[in-house]
């Protein structure tokens, strides 16, 4: 470049170069305890309650997500027990129909929107940065905002339930029952607004996960070397981004129908009741895969570690994840086989619903092949994987049965379907979740969970589950529809319902046992080394529980199982600043180091923005003007959140 460099620019470059020398960086000059002390001071959050509210540390937000979700799991479980007590015997008048309708609506909504999706996001937000070898997620403040929106959504729903204005229209809220004429008052609006809260939170978390997985992987961790759990969360995040807007649109249209009298779902004014069902299930079916795919990630992680070898046929499993993600968007009409749509159209959805079983079948084969080819050690997480396989495959096969139109016309909206989706959701997602919580418990808390308590808990929940939900297949075949607060005697439904009710209490006991084990181990559990299970992925290279900065130096990855292949010390790359929070961005496919990215510090603005948006959402239930006036504080809060700080330093190209 022979162009004459102007004097002023050259002098500026020299000044910057001198300045650059003064920055403290990790590397040969600064390592060991001195480095870790400096990093600790830079990365730990401010003290006190302000710090607690303003933290953007992905580990703290992840922990909060998991604890809040498990709390909602417990609350939803209590509602399930109340429903099972009511259904234990025929013609029972223990709970009034109005109350029972509120119970099953809250049970469904809590489990689907306030437990299943958030707990998966919580675990991912905690583990993914550690598994990818970086110090923080991308957009950490958006991550904090996502948690608060989820929390406020849960408080809105449960607050309304306790104030006796909880929804009573089912977790799916079909119009015109949820419309302005047949759902008086504000019950349905509160449900619809809870959807808006949780959907905004899920979208925010999805954006955080996608950017973290694609841009902040450790150098050398190409897409082909990325752990399967990271692949699963990437597919899930993309699915969230494509499916949530459908339900956002549907619930906003429902609120506008109920608040200002628009006619979206009013058949008289050429609206259509089925518009709701199409939009809702276009989101609904991907939603259940959003809950299931992270669980496949958990199973892959557990199987790899406890069979002491990588999962068999890694590319097949990755392709299976991606194809499941895509196919999930093509089969929502199988929820609507009884609404009188053209029969030929239905047959496309029958074949699509059957095709989506193939990728999952291949994944199951790969896990079994891993067990066949390795030496499986049946500690608690591996037991949950075995429980998952035994249970989920029954649910998958009953799913294939109801994919056929003639069969679904008999089985749709009966307890056969209740059995099916509990098999695939509890069997398919909750069992792996319990396994992964036991597996990552030492990483999150630094203590090991008790093994014997774990085993007892597993067998209780496994057998309790079969006792609860298998009889429901028979109840469905014997003609018991869903969402009925009672059933007549003498139709043959007494025995299956009684068994289900007993089983429900066994499952409840098992969950209580798991919680006791979790709390007990916090203080009495054996202290966990950084890699208690001898696993292969990077999160086990960090301390248990990890320091605020996760890794002293950013590790370099050369294979799919870095910890198993690195003799002695992990190769590392150095040069990140120590005096400022900074992470290394790598290119999407090859994960070659690309940029140093300053990480936004802790701030109260995400919380304030969440409160402003929350006030906007809740008040817009009561008056359309709230949307106008509520937008002002929300705009101010988000503007302040993104207000550009004067850049004391600027990102420089990577030197080495």
């Amino acid at each position, binding site marked *: 470049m022979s162009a004459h460099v102007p004097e002023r620019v050259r002098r500026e470059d020299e000044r910057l170069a001198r300045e650059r020398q003064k920055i403290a960086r990790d590397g040969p000059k600064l390592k060991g305890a001195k480095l870790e002390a400096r990093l600790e001071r830079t990365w730990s959050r401010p003290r006190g309650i302000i710090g607690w509210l303003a933290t953007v540390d992905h580990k703290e937000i992840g922990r909060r997500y998991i604890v809040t979700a498990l709390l909602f799991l417990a609350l939803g479980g209590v509602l399930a027990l109340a429903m099972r007590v009511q259904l234990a015997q025929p013609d029972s008048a223990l709970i009034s129909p109005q109350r029972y309708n509120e119970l099953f609506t809250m049970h469904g909504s809590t489990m689907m929107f306030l437990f299943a999706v958030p707990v998966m996001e919580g675990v991912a937000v905690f583990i993914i940065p550690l598994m990818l070898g970086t110090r923080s997620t991308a957009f950490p403040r958006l991550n904090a905002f996502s948690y608060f929106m989820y929390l406020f959504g849960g408080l809105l729903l449960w607050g309304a339930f306790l104030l006796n204005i909880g929804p009573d229209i089912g977790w799916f809220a079909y119009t015109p029952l949820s419309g302005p004429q047949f759902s008086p008052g504000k019950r349905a609006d509160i449900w619809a607004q809870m959807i808006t809260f949780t959907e905004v939170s899920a979208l925010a978390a999805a954006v955080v996960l996608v950017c973290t997985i694609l841009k902040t992987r450790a150098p050398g961790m190409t897409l082909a070397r990325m752990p399967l759990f990271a692949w699963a969360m990437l597919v899930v995040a993309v699915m969230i981004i494509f499916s949530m807007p459908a339900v956002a649109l549907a619930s906003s249209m429902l609120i506008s129908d109920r608040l200002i009298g628009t006619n979206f779902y009013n*058949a*008289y*004014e*050429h609206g259509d009741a089925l518009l709701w069902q199409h939009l809702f299930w276009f989101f609904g079916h991907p939603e259940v895969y959003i809950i299931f795919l992270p669980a496949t990630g958990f199973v892959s992680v557990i199987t790899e570690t406890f069979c002491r070898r990588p999962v068999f046929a890694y590319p097949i499993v990755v392709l299976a994840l991606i194809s499941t993600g895509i196919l999930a968007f093509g089969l929502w009409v199988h929820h609507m086989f009884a609404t009188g749509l053209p029969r030929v159209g239905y047959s496309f959805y029958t074949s699509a619903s059957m095709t989506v079983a193939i990728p999952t079948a291949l994944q199951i084969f790969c896990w079994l092949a891993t067990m066949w080819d390795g030496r499986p050690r049946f500690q608690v997480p591996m037991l949950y994987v075995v429980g998952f396989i035994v249970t989920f495959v029954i649910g998958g096969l009953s799913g294939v049965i109801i994919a056929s139109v003639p069969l679904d016309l008999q089985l749709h909206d009966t307890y056969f379907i209740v059995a099916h989706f509990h098999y695939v959701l509890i069997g398919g997602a909750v069992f792996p979740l319990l396994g992964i919580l036991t597996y990552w418990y030492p990483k999150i808390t630094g203590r090991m969970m008790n093994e014997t308590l774990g085993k007892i808990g597993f067998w209780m929940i496994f057998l309790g589950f079969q006792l609860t939900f298998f009889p429901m297949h028979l109840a469905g075949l014997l003609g018991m529809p869903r969402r009925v607060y009672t059933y007549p005697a003498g139709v043959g439904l007494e025995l299956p319902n009684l068994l289900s009710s007993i089983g429900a209490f066994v499952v409840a006991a098992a969950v209580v046992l798991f919680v006791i084990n979790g709390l007990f181990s916090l203080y009495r559990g054996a202290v966990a080394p950084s890699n208690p299970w001898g696993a292969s992925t990077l999160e086990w290279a960090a301390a248990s529980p990890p320091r605020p900065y996760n890794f002293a130096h950013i590790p370099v990855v050369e294979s799919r199982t870095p910890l198993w292949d690195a003799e002695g010390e992990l190769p590392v790359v150095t040069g990140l600043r120590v005096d400022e929070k900074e992470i290394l961005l790598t290119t999407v496919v090859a994960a070659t180091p690309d940029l140093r990215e300053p990480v936004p510090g802790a701030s109260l603005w995400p919380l304030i923005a969440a409160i402003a948006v929350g006030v906007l959402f809740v008040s817009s239930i009561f008056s359309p003007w709230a949307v106008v006036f509520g937008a002002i504080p929300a705009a101010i809060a988000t503007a302040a959140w993104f207000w550009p700080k004067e850049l004391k330093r600027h990102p420089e190209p990577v030197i080495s």
Partner: protein
Amino acid sequence: MQRVEYLFTALGASAACAALSACNRSPPKQQLGSATVYQAAPVGDHAVAAPAASPADDGNWVMPGKDYAATRFSALNQVTPANVSKLALSFTFSTATTHGYEAPPLVVKGTMYLITPFPNYLYALDLTKPGAPTKWVFKPKPLAASQGVACCDTVNRGAAYDQGRIFFNTLDGQTIAVDANSGQQVWRTQLGDIQKGETITMAPLVAGGKVLVGNSGGEMGVRGWIAALDEGSGKLAWRAYNTGPDKDVLIGPRFKPFYKSDQGKDLGVKTWPPEAWKIGGGTVWGWPSFDPETHLIYYGVGNPGPWNPDQRPGDNKWTTGVFARDVSTGEAVWFYQTTPHDLFDHDDINEIILADIPWKGQRRPVLFRPARAGFFYVQDRRTGQVLSAAPYGYVNGYKGVDLKTGLIIPNHDKDTKVGRVVRDICPAAPGLKDWNPSAFSPVTGLVYIPHNNLCMDFGAMQANYISGTPYVGADVKMYAGPGGNRGAFTAWDPIRQRKVWEIPEDLPLWSPALVTAGGVVFYGTMDGWFKAIDARTGKQLWRFKAGSGIIGQPISYRGPDGRQYIAFVAGVGGWAGAVVSAKMDTRDPTGALGFANAVKDLPMKTTAGGMLYVFTLPR
């Protein structure tokens, strides 16, 4: 497209709409109030009134239709297009009532009789003295509760004079005969029962020694009938129902309907779901005519109940059709059903003008019917055969009338359905022309039709029957039809079935027409303009602003001093004017069974009233 025009007219900016000529799709925007001539008035051979039914004019006005042929033609010719602009007010009289005044004043040998809407006072004014002082007032005192079952304003369509007595009906279903000189009641017969939702609003027809009276209440699930009372004693001679078994409908051996679809046994039961004919409507509240020559009466039958067609599958015989019966025995001679299984509340009670027309070289006795469904029927009055039927305004609810089978051809994408609103049905429920009768001039051979131009959205729903309460089962919203004008006054050539000229009017035309031998046509508008029009050219000659909207029948009579007088009573109301007379709130577009949406601006253009105006030429 109508919605935009409706909004403009609703704001009362009719001038703005006239300027925006692009805002309609039919022929270029006519200037409101001025006539558009389509072709020259017919010359030479044309229709004449049935001779027996239309005797020479004696200057009196003894029945609403002027004569049995219902021509509403006055043979007086002192008032001509040349001097009509010099008409001056002779005297006025307030009837002290504020509901819709649809009746004509009657004039018999120097006395004028006025029958008012509820509470149905009967006034007698002495025309021989200046200012026409009141001779006597007869107060029938009908039940106040009857106002609760009168669907479309507590109106009365007129009285009738015969052999020294005045016959009229009261809202609570009584027919009363009063001595014309003394005002004393002669006899009174109770015919209707308000607990079943029955009222009587029609003008009785006195013919063949019988007083013919029918009931109203098609919207209340009433079973329709026409009854004949003996003129002298008031005793019931016969009563013919319009639904039910043949013996109730007085169908016997003489009954020979022209078309196959009307032939069959007990069709009044077979074409209804079980029990539905008992609450099936088919009321008679319009204009019967009488042909002394054949001794037959002709009358139209109202709409089937409820408005929701899905609740009464089948042809719903004998509703929305025309009956011909022998006046003395009531035996049915023929019947023609205009709209089988009526979908849009198109009662077929409009006036039936008896005329003779030149047909293939000889005279054929026919009847003219500008029907509510929008077609001008010319039918042979001996057999009911439809000779011709052509739309006299914009119609999209039907495609035409098949002359071979006599059946109206429906337009199936306007079929109403429970659970979904059907939009843009023209004509609307009140039809292309409602009850307000047209006038026929044997001099010009034209029929002068005051009608409206409204379309509607119709949403059917399941109707629940509780006797004494409305049994409708539909939500309706009406609005201006194509062209943006909500009414029109049309001169129609009944032989060539073509418009001669037409005057578009801003508001729907709800007033009957009067035509005089002098070649002048009179009608009133709903915002109170009483207009005189040249019968040949349609040019407006003179107009007078009355105190309230005009829906009453104008008449022309020869006063004791031999001069020609023109008289009418201005009092807005009826179904179209209920927005004013019932003090409705026009923020609800479905008010008054949908009419509120079409005349939101009426309360600003007129107030309620009940004032008689009499004009004559100055000396």
